[in-house]
């Protein structure tokens, strides 16, 4: 996670790449939909059981190399398990963690950020201090610590990521809500007689929403990476379950015998995270009536 610096909303906005059709992030969406589809129907689509291997067919290369076969299109690992099947089932875990953790972090962080930015005063002071304290922890170490306390398992991983990353939403949303609070139309709504909560929901939130959505998509990518990091150090879920991070960890050990064990999960992880951040950019444009 340390490799990815928090992207502020300013940097998210940029010229649309040529392959984007009318501002819609077609390629990232297709990639994500494909992975999501495959992950959901993993039981039907995966050619083999991801957990059962046979030492007799260990280190089989991908099908286009000599010795490979279409039965194991992306080869097999050090204990003879099908790499493709493990990738597919790993996608299920990655997406579950990505969605759940990002949404949890988003809801908590955005709510606190909105309140702090719009209400200001003591609310802002308290929330900002908590965020400052939170950000002082090194995130990966913090998550490892949390998992150590909570125990491994899908729920713990989701909780750990949400607990760490809500500050990302909180800071961005707070700053945006703060600048919104000074706008004339907020004053108009106050003059019209609306209370602070009504104004927050109706006037402030729609203006902050593009940033929240962009950040949510980005955060899904980050959550997938953090999950991979945690499973890389064997702190995600049980070792038998296929995770992309776990596959990368195993692949690293066999890199000289079987590069495909490392490369395919890496490419999948890379494409997933890249797609999420591209999707975020596209959604931000889509949600913003001025940019649209």
């Amino acid at each position, binding site marked *: 996670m340390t490799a990815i610096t928090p992207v502020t909303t300013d940097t998210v906005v940029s010229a649309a790449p040529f392959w984007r059709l009318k501002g819609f992030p077609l390629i990232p969406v297709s990639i994500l939909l494909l992975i999501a589809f495959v992950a959901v129907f993993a039981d039907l689509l995966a050619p083999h059981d991801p957990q059962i291997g046979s030492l007799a067919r260990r280190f089989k290369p991908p099908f286009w190399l000599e010795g490979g076969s279409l039965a194991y299109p992306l080869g097999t690992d050090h204990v003879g398990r099908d790499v493709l099947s493990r990738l597919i089932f790993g996608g299920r875990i990655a997406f579950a963690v990505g969605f759940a953790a990002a949404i949890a972090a988003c809801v908590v962080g955005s709510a606190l950020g909105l309140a702090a930015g719009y209400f200001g005063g003591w609310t802002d002071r308290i929330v900002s201090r908590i965020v400052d304290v939170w950000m002082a922890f090194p995130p990966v170490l913090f998550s490892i610590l949390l998992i150590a306390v909570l125990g491994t398992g899908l729920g713990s991983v989701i909780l750990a990521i949400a607990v760490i990353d809500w500050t990302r939403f909180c800071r961005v949303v707070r700053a945006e809500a703060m600048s919104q609070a000074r706008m004339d*139309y907020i*004053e108009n709504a*106050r*003059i019209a*007689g*609306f209370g602070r909560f009504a104004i927050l929901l109706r006037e402030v939130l729609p*203006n902050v929403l593009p940033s929240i959505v962009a950040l949510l998509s980005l955060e899904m990518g980050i959550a997938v990476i953090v999950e991979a990091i945690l499973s890389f150090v064997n702190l995600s879920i049980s070792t038998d379950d296929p995770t992309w991070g776990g596959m990368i960890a195993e692949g690293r050990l066999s890199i000289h015998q079987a590069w495909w064990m490392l490369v395919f999960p890496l490419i999948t992880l890379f494409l997933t995270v890249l797609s999420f951040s591209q999707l975020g950019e596209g959604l931000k444009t889509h949600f*913003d*009536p001025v940019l649209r």
Partner: protein
Amino acid sequence: MRAPCLEISALSATLPTGSRVLRSVSLVVEPGEVHALVGESGAGKSMIGKAVLGVLPTSVRIVEGQIRLEGTDLQALPAKQRRRLTGARTALIPQDPLTALNPSRRVGPQMTDRLVGILGWDAGRADARVRQLLDEVRIRQPERVLRCYPHELSGGMRQRVLIAAAFAAEPRLIVADEPTTALDVTVQKQILRLIADMQRERGTAILFVTHDLGVVAKISQRVSVLYGGKIVEEADVGALFASPRHAYTRALMAATPRYTDPVASLLPVDSTVLAGLAEEIAEADRAWRPLAAQATRSELIARLLPFRRSSRG
């Protein structure tokens, strides 16, 4: 006797530093009257408007005086009740139409918000009213405009929309905060006439904030001239222009640019006039003992006394 539409009496407001931004301002706006507030930037014109509407910056505190809207003392009301009351009976025509509409929301719902949310109208009635008002401000294709986002409309159009929105709830008082300043010169005149027409038809009182004496002459019946948060002269518009009593008012009039003699008319306000004003304001401040400050001090002493006694023994 009917209460005036707006009655401000001895209103003083301070910054946290203690300096006054409003100095015992008193003025009366009768129903159906346009009352202009003129003065240079920082004279406190907009502050008065904001105080009436209840949207003063949090750093500005009203320390003294009353604001009565149709006889109701606004500051005596609990916050929520005050919001409801001013929401139903007052409105604002803002200075900058470009920032006064929410960029993320369509124009239609923004206009009906107050009718539905505060006055409790049903959506159909609010829609019909807003359409009728857009018609009145001479917007063609009101249907289309209602579905637009603000950035799809020009500045003049947006100001028309805001004027329509301000009049939609049939308020008794509208605060117009330099409504033409941010507009193109060619549009200014139309907008001004529009406000004047709608005001006359409905008999809405307007507190018209401006620094343009030409506008004052055209639209208002009474004028208050402000300097340093103090009303230096108040008069009927005819009397003010015919025979201004205060030296500052005369200086302001002399400073109004004229086509016939553009260079000579661009006079700064004379330094002796400014010195006189400074003296007047200093005099007002010397005489001023904020009641609120006295109260808090005696309260503070009352609160400290038992503590001192108990700490002694």
